[in-house]
């Protein structure tokens, strides 16, 4: 018998659709699992159930408006499936509400990935393409939440992008923290531009009213031209109580993926180029690899190892 149980029941009525349905059917008897006295239980008699349902629906809308901005391509993909929109709405539940805000994007992405993995699709290639885009957005969100947590725990030390020395190619390089690299079937930015007809907090509103047809999704995805999507979480506000984190991305050729393991602080760009040259890589490829290493360094995704 405690007030905190009343608070828990109120929260659950707002974010647990199953409990809300029970409450609608049975009234306060649906709250028997909570440690409430008769008087505490009777406080819930004043709820207008139709209004509670409207309120809960508005909260789902508001929360998905925020989350869609973090998982844009995944949300539009879900809209292309029968009951996909309803499935996403159902993912806004008690578990999500209990999750820290900075980890909610990744949690939603994981649920979307699992849902898509269980779907029967016209072909397996389509499924793997879709899962790759969702996986890329999950990876970006994990980088974002990792940095946010580090700032809050005062474990993050900001590092400015230093001037690139003339002899950068001779120096070993390493990835900085909060960087992720994922292969996507085609340019992520290109796909996002094609699929997302609204931006930011308008995306959910637009997509839920204008879902994509599956055939349209397949057409827009087109043929594969794999790219390596490299993303980095950046501190935009290094404040312990309410940090700001942004995301920077670049795209490299798919072949770069196999080289990422060598960006570990032991090898220089020149060393890697020499190994590729010895393996018979053509000049054009070597030039592309060198340009990729330089871009990673310029954007602060790698740094020269001290």
């Amino acid at each position: 018998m405690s007030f905190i149980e009343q608070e828990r029941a109120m929260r659950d009525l707002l974010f647990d659709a199953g409990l809300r349905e029970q409450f609608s059917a049975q009234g306060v008897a649906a709250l028997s699992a909570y440690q409430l006295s008769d008087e505490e239980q009777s406080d819930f008699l004043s709820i207008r159930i139709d209004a509670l349902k409207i309120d809960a629906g508005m909260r789902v809308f508001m929360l998905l408006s925020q989350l869609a901005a973090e998982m844009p391509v995944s949300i539009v993909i879900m809209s292309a499936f029968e009951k996909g929109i309803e499935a996403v709405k159902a993912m806004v539940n008690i578990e999500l509400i209990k999750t820290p805000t900075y980890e909610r994007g990744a949690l939603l992405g994981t649920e979307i990935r699992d849902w898509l993995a269980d779907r029967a699709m016209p072909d397996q290639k389509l499924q793997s393409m879709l899962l790759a885009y969702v996986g890329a957005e999950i990876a970006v969100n994990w980088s974002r939440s990792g940095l946010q947590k580090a700032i809050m725990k005062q474990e993050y030390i900001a590092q400015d992008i230093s001037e690139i020395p003339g002899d950068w190619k001779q120096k070993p390089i390493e990835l900085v923290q909060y960087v992720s690299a994922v292969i996507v079937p085609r340019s992520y930015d290109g796909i996002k531009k094609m699929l997302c007809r609204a931006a930011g907090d308008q995306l959910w509103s637009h997509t839920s009213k204008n879902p994509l047809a599956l055939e349209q999704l397949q057409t827009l995805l087109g043929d594969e031209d794999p790219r390596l999507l490299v993303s980095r979480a950046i501190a935009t506000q290094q404040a312990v109580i309410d940090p700001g984190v942004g995301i920077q991305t670049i795209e490299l050729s798919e072949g770069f993926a196999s080289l990422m393991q060598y960006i570990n602080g032991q090898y220089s760009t020149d060393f890697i180029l020499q190994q590729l040259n010895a393996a018979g890589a053509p000049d054009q490829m070597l030039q592309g690899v060198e340009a990729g290493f330089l871009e990673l360094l310029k954007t602060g995704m790698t740094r020269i190892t001290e």
Partner: protein
Amino acid sequence: MATDIEQLPVLGMGASLSLSAQPDPVALVKEKGGPQFVEYAARVNATDVYDEVARIRATGTPVLFHPSYINFCGSYSNSDAWLQATQQHIDTVDSPWFAQDCAYCFLDERHSYSTQLGYFIPPILNDASLKLAIRRVTEVQARVNVPVAIEPPPMTFVVGHMTLFEFFGRLAAETDCALLLDMGHLVSYEMASGYHIMDELDKLPLERVIEVHIAGGKLRQGDAGPVYVDAHENTILDETWHMFEQLLPQLPRVKAVCFECEGVAKASVLKTLGKVREQVIALSSHPTLVEMAAGHT
């Protein structure tokens, strides 16, 4: 901090605006008939809004900081670090008082914004909740060096046996805090509860009301009747105007009347502010507020 309402400045007719979106607050305050103060919501760290607020204040226009991250009710206390940053924010922008909805912004130990719950969750209206709300308001007052004003939030649904004004009346009296009344929120309570605000006036210390909000909204039709939804980009509903007309004469010490109009076109803001001013002149029982309204026409 104890509330000396007499000492608070009369700010007149203002507008609640988004600092990073249209209409531009600075352009608006320079217009004839524009707002006499600007209220804004923002993140806790003042650095986010410092430049924008400085632009507004450079025109001689005061600002009010009106956030959505304080728990003025419930079991979960506000973190010291967030309250400290709040005080810094208030100092930086020179907000003469600190007002926010008395509602849940977070439901565990992690201090956060109400947006993480969709928006505010209203307080439970019973004695146990009132005791905790007193504790929450007091803990904020202890860390903030300007008067605190609490606002009944939008109420789509009601949990508890107490009426809204009994809860807020007792809360204000126990904590010696000021009050902010949002006309649309009161309409929402009437629809959610079936009670009439005008029948409850004797339960609220009306002399503690220092600020009034009026804003756009919409009605969603439920099975048991309409549900009021706060929607600042929409026009002000007749029900809300009616609440304003009934209540304004009952509020002798209102210092600020704020049209919440984020996302509303500049011409509409000016037109509505004109109507608000006319109503204040016709109905307010606060002479200085009426003078400020009249001086602007």
